[in-house]
């Protein structure tokens, strides 16, 4: 394909939504949110895989599409289109301008992240995605939405910091930060240097914050609960998906072996699954249960990752097939959220939503099976797969998801039948994050009061004391007295003669 054309197409996929985010540019266009997806649709229609290099951008980055990211792009397009449709409130009032702006900005960064071909570019898009999604959560929302957004933002900022440090380690190892090149370089550097261990750990921590997996999951239930349907729909397909994609892109899976870390990750995944199931079953609102369901699904993936770190062959396979998993996750969450709209009592019963509910239940229940099928390495690796660590326990995962699916269905149907009950508490006892949050805001208040009241008070009293010292009458009087004394004739003449005598004697 012609170089200019491909460049134009690739650049316009994130570029058009970005441009349309300016209110002035879209005021006359009908359905701007759907229009912005046009380049992406065209790109999907073109069967070839290609990429472009933009050496003067940032540190030399580019955009590209290949077979795997094609699936992701397809899922994204569908999700965004549905979300855009749902964005219009049924009562017909105009959508808040801010919401549209953030919608388009998030879309731009999301699509850009899928198309990114190097570490820095991906990181840039992912960081901006965090800010954009924050806007989506908070714009024209209520107090719970603001709280959810605040927590989300804190997690994103910390995640960005951690990932930045990881990137620095990568950059210290190699100059070329495109995915394959970086993986090779990091793998090579593993011998004798702990750098790659640091790198892997930081990447995992950073993206774990972005994925919302136990124990760094606090924002996910809040977001699910507080977001409006159109935005909650995107939760699985946008922030979580990009984070999972990031792990796969950043880690040199298949090229390094970190058995201890891998084993630890697997146990972490298992624990997360147990936690998610237990707490999820305790929830009484369908949406928050979805958060824990998502966590259970992603925990299987995380466990797979752990085994991938232990057995490189598995890891190499995972690299290629992860996008498929992510795609199914996105659809699962979207379908579930769409289905749960039936309980919100703000939408009418429609066949579409009922279908969505059924599809969602199925997807959720079967997701571990699908995961295993999708990510199974081809050609001779099945046996390895069956033996690889905790992944072999996948039937238990299946049990968890089936339980959760049934519980969700039950809650949904109960809600549909009853009037809206008071929102139940969604934080299980013993979770330490709210305590942390409370402590943080208290210390913040303390700092502010110290800065605005206490410190200035001390400073002014200190200055007043110093000023008093300078003004002290003694000094003034001493200086005045000295000058007056010198003006007396007797003293002056005496000093004069003394001076003459001194000079005479000293020159002798």
């Amino acid at each position: 394909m012609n170089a200019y054309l491909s460049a134009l197409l690739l650049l316009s996929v994130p570029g058009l939504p970005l441009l349309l985010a300016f209110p002035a540019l879209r005021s006359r266009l009908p359905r701007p949110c759907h229009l912005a997806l046009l380049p992406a649709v065209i790109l999907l229609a073109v069967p070839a895989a290609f990429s472009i290099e933009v050496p003067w951008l940032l540190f030399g980055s580019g955009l590209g599409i290949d077979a795997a990211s094609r699936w992701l792009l397809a899922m994204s397009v569908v999700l965004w289109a549905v979300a855009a449709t749902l964005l219009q409130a049924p009562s017909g009032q105009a959508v808040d301008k801010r919401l549209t702006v953030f919608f388009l900005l998030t879309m731009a960064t999301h699509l850009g992240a899928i198309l990114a071909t190097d570490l820095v570019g991906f990181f840039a898009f992912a960081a901006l995605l965090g800010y954009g999604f924050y806007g989506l959560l908070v714009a024209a929302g209520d107090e719970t939405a603001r709280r959810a957004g605040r927590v989300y933002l804190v997690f994103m900022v910390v995640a960005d910091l951690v990932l930045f440090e990881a990137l620095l380690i990568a950059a210290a190892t190699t100059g070329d930060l495109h995915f394959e090149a970086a993986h090779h370089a990091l793998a090579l550097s593993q011998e004798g240097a702990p750098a790659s261990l640091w790198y892997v750990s930081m990447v995992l921590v950073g993206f774990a914050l972005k994925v919302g997996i136990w124990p760094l999951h606090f924002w996910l239930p809040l977001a699910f609960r507080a977001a409006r349907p159109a935005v909650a729909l995107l939760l699985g397909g946008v922030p979580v998906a990009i984070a999972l994609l990031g792990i796969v892109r950043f880690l040199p899976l298949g090229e390094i072996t970190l058995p201890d870390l891998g084993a630890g990750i697997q146990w972490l995944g298992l624990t997360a699954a147990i936690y998610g199931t237990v707490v999820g079953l305790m929830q009484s609102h369908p949406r928050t249960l979805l958060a824990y369901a998502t966590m259970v699904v992603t925990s299987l993936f995380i466990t797979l990752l752990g085994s991938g770190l232990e057995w490189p062959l598995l890891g190499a396979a995972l690299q290629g097939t992860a996008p498929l998993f992510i795609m199914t996750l996105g659809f699962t969450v979207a379908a579930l959220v769409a289905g749960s709209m039936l309980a919100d009592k703000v939408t009418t019963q429609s066949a579409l939503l009922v279908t969505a509910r059924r599809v969602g239940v199925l997807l959720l229940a079967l997701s571990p099976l699908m995961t295993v099928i999708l990510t199974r390495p081809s050609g001779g690796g099945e046996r390895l797969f069956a033996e690889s660590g905790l992944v072999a326990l996948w039937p238990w995962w299946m049990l968890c998801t089936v339980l959760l699916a049934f519980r969700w269905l039950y809650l949904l149907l109960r809600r549909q039948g009853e009037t809206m009950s008071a929102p139940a508490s969604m934080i299980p006892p013993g979770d330490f994050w709210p305590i942390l949050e409370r402590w943080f805001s208290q210390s913040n208040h303390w700092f502010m009061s110290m800065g605005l009241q206490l410190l200035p008070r001390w400073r002014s009293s200190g200055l007043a004391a110093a000023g008093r010292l300078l003004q002290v009458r003694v000094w003034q009087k001493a200086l005045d007295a000295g000058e007056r004394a010198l003006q007396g004739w007797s003293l002056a003449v005496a000093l004069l003669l003394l001076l003459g005598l001194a000079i005479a004697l000293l020159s002798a």
Partner: protein
Amino acid sequence: MTWDSSLLLLILATSLVPGLVIFFLPEERVSLRTTLNMAGAVVKLVLVGVMIWGVFHGQQYETRLPLLPGGLDLVLHADAESVLFVTLSTVLWLVTTVYAIGYLEGSHHRSRFFGFFSLCVTATVGVALAGNLITFLLFYELLTLSTYPLIVHRETEEARQAGRIYLRYTIAGGAVLLVGTVWLYDVAGSFDFTHRGVLAGLDDADRAALTAIFVLLIAGLGVKAALIPLHGWLPRAMVAPAPVSALLHAVAVVKAGAFGIVRVVNDVYGVEFAASLGVTGPLAVLAAATIIYGSLRALFQDSLKRRLAYSTVSQVSYIVLGIAIVGPIATIGGLVHLVHQGVMKITLFFCAGNLAETLGVHNISDMNGVGKRMPWTMAAFTIGALGMIGVPPLAGFITKWYLGLGALDAGQDWVILVLAGSSLLNAAYFLPILYVAWFKAPPDAWPAERYWGRRETAWALLAPPAVTALLTLAVGLLASAPFSPLQWARFITTQEYAP
């Protein structure tokens, strides 16, 4: 006089001459004054462009005038580092002139203001083009003197106090710098700025004396560069009108101090020699302490300009940190932050000035819903703030990247923690401002609103922050393009470190 030796004098004259003429213009001659201002700025830009072209192709521009006996001349010299700073000052002067014309519309003493404004820019360009320490000192002191009338411009009691404190700090700093310079002259005999340091070539120099001289020089320069504990004047000086705060205290004055430190470490002492003396380590620690302290103090401020002032205190020390970590990559980061911080900070100050001028809003607690009333201004502010936090692909990200990489390269891993902490603190004090502005409901009435029809504010107030915000985006996004500040910083560093 050849073209080579007179170009630099011409560049200085393009702001000196209009400034002197403007002093004598009556208040009512607005258009003449505006024309003089803009003409001077544009001509200077053109000349600087010529100079950049020449320096890139290896042309030597130098002007020498005898000043003191013993071979001490007044030397103006254009090398790669001067070019970096001169370009920054010139471009931002142009933008700030436009802004100042809009901001001071209808206020008193504009002739006096613009006269001293032009003198300030002359002094800044002189600092950038100085070829030895004595010339640097001359223009450094001139900068102090020409900024004082701008601080007290409003003629209130508070302004007078702020001016007094400013002078206390800067004149004392200048005196310390003078002592250091004379002592250095005694010990070393000359101090033309040379690549890799003029002291590095000396065989038997008194190391204790050189260390003491270094401390004196850094102390004298550190006042303007707002290193703790010498930074106390900067928050007080925020009482000046916004264009003054924008250009001078975010760009020119603090940058002159930081630039001086760069010159002393790179071109007087030489980086490796300074490291062998053992002075760069403490300097790095001091810079790191300033970074954290400035950010902490910024958290406590409710006044927007004061929060930005403390942010400046913190950010300028990035430059010093980059220089003090002995390593080429870190030096690149420090040098490029000269440009990046200037562009980002000036955007923020322009926006703060817009808020004050259009709505009478000075405190963050009054800024609820400002984003709805003044979207373009707040958009520019958002870009500047995100740049400060280090969000890619903006300018601040580039700097932190190079500083972090340089720290890893030089084996100083603790710097990464400092950078991380600083980014976290930056996020902690900038993001609440953005949240308040964009996501809170506006009050019924602003403290002192002025209307410009359908526009949110005057053109002259709106265009400059937009331009500098775009610049912030551009220097970050296009960092690897030729002639970007990053490439220029690389160019300087290769000259400094190359054998």
